[in-house]
């Protein structure tokens, strides 16, 4: 998905993990995924640049779909679809 497609997604669960370092954003993602409906999109906002790779690997292992990420001013938005 390109940036405009990602930004146009209907986000079911948004997590603002900005300002927390590793492993904060992962712990918040793990905690929040339960509140996201299966098939719904979750957006994780993080100022930790490691989050993109971490979430990608996490999605692959946990069976979710990593959709992509968008760089914002000082943070990144990472998008995924909850599959299980």
């Amino acid at each position: 998905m390109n940036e405009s497609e990602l930004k146009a997604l209907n986000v079911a669960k948004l997590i603002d993990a900005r300002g927390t370092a590793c492993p904060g954003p992962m712990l918040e993602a793990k905690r929040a995924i339960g509140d996201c409906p299966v098939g719904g999109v979750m957006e994780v906002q993080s100022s930790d640049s490691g989050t993109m790779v971490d979430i990608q690997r996490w999605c692959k292992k946990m069976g979710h779909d990593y959709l992509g990420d968008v760089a914002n001013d000082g943070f990144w938005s990472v998008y995924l679809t909850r599959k299980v």
Partner: protein
Amino acid sequence: MPTTGKANMNDSQNNDQLLKDLLKRVEALEREAPKNQLTIGVMSGDLERTMLAFIIALGATTFDMEVDMVFTLRASATLRDPKKVHKDLHELEPSPIKFDLEGHGAMSLNDLIQLAAESGVRITICNLSMDLMELEREELIDYPNLTFAGVAAFIDLCGQSRQCWFM
């Protein structure tokens, strides 16, 4: 024909035996197979490694892994609650680098321990280390999953874990 019938019976007996043998072997493999579990042996008494051990433990919980941390020797003393300790022994070795944890949004060791407790990370402390480090159980942090054990428990945990670390 009788000869064919006999041969079929032998085949079917052989198949039954083969199936039994295979089931037995599969059961043994399942019993021995590592689980989605991580065991971290923590020996270091320095702040950096202790924090790192908790960060790795917490990372594993996000993958739904069961996590056991086994504290031994100097590391055992890192689990003392400063508020409960009256003697001043074996302090954590400070890092030679002065980290600005707060400035970078990083968690303190206390925060990490708190999160580990909430995330179901189990802690085992080596009994011998308790004695060698002259630690009293009453001096330790309040932690929901804290037990005491020996080397056999560590080996058993490692045996059933997909990943084992020692730091």
